[in-house]
């Protein structure tokens, strides 16, 4: 059985004449928490869109959980979970109704039990029958995570997961990401521009610059190559901004 969770080869995407992603070659092993760093517009969200089959590549291909995003997108979708940036979910439905909806779309068997287990795992019980219109941003984000892991995907994609959260929310989310990786065995692919998130949660990182992957290494190697407290910032600034 392959130990590779994500493998991209020459993955590209253009919007008209603009090349958002240029020939991405990337490998993420199973069990990793991978952080993709980059400036705004570097191609991070496009990469996630392509790997989650929401966009079709204009060139190249990728496999996620062993399935090709081009030839077998449906199988990819059965194996992934996804939390977009600033997701609001359905305001006029309760948390339970939202979770049941997304759980059913993913074909979860024993849904009621799975929802209870998931909410206990996220330490977020007691709000099941409240409508989401009454939820804070942090609470919505936890419902967003719950829907993404209900079907126990093998690869979980998080797009700027801490965007707009308060410091306590960021801390809780970081701990949750680590637990989803260690306790549920999920490979996690995370887009972020917050360096602190990467050092505290990721096992390896990649840096995108103008649609090209300019750096990829395990976190420990990065820290060794760029020693010092500001090491990641150094990596980010020296590699990511050269032609910015």
């Amino acid at each position: 059985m392959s130990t590779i969770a994500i493998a991209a080869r020459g993955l590209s995407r253009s919007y008209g004449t603009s090349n958002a992603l240029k020939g991405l070659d990337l490998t993420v092993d199973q069990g990793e928490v991978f952080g993709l760093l980059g400036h705004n517009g570097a191609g991070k969200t496009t990469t996630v869109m392509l790997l989650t089959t929401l966009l079709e590549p204009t060139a190249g291909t990728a496999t996620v959980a062993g399935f090709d995003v081009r030839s077998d997108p449906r199988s990819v979708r059965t194996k992934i979970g996804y939390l977009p940036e600033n997701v609001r979910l359905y305001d006029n439905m309760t948390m339970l109704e939202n979770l049941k909806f997304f759980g059913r779309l993913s074909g979860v068997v024993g849904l009621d039990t799975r929802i209870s287990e998931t909410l206990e795992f996220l330490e977020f019980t007691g709000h099941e029958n409240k409508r989401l219109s009454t939820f804070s941003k942090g609470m919505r984000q936890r419902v967003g995570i719950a829907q993404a892991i209900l079907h126990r995907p093998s690869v979980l994609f998080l797009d700027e997961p801490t965007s707009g959260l308060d410091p306590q929310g960021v801390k809780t989310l970081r701990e949750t990401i680590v637990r989803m990786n260690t306790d549920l065995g999920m490979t996690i692919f995370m887009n972020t521009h917050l360096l602190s998130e990467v050092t505290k949660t990721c096992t390896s990182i990649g840096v995108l610059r103008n649609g090209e992957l300019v750096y990829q290494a395990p976190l420990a190697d990065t820290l060794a190559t760029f020693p010092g407290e500001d090491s990641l910032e150094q990596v980010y600034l020296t590699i990511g901004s050269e032609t910015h």
Partner: protein
Amino acid sequence: MGTLITVIRYEILTAMRDRLPRTLMIVFLGMIAASSIIGWLTNQTVTAVYNQVLADGLTTAANPFSGVSPLRYMSNTVIYMILIGALLASVAGVQASLRDRKMNTADLILSRPVSTVGFLAGKLLGQGTWLAGVLLVSAVTNWISISVITGSVLDPTGGAKILLFYGIGWVFLMGFVSLGMVSGLRSTTEATALLIPILIWAVLVFVVPQLGTAAHPVSLLNPVAAPPSQGGFFQLMNNFLGPLAVGEHFKTASSFLLDTGQTASIASLSFAVIVIFALVAAAVLLATPRNTVRSALHE
């Protein structure tokens, strides 16, 4: 199949909780309830006018309303389907599409093993089920009010005709739900999304019939379909644009079902036009590309 049913179920749930279509639904049901009373009042007056004309010795013609079907009391319902029903259906369709774009949930759904066609078909059928419920309430309202007005329970044939009327009405309105959904998916702002199906409705209900019949726009609010004008230009226009005048076709089809004048042969064309309108609108909806379903809403 499971996915389709899930989408249908949740579409019904959210449609029932959406305040905007719900407000229009209340107006629609209120007017349906009022329409029988208006129909009865008008019928009473027309009969009295005829009796007066007869008493004054001004006519020897037979009363055009003697022995008319009790379903005639529903004639105003026809126009409310075209006016309020179509608007309700369009707004419900627009909201169904905008909901996922506003809440950023389209990406969540499409990153699951759900096909675009399955997702959109589920939403359309969910809206259709909700709409069928609204129309069923309307049908029962009509049945009860006609029974009360005539003083006797409407016979099963009358009841069946009411159901058939709402059946074709459902098909007619589903065309507007699809139109609203397409607009909700393709427009960049909520106002544009709401306005475009209303504009298309205005063209189909007012402009197209005017070109074929020379009827003035306000007279097209009458439940009786406008007869085509005799001029060569109008007959030409009527031949070309006639099939697009879905509002007039709905009046003709309803007139046959409610026993208010049209023959089966004339009405059959109108039935066909309504069904084709709904099918084309649904086909345009289901052909929406995946990327359009995911497109962001501005404003």
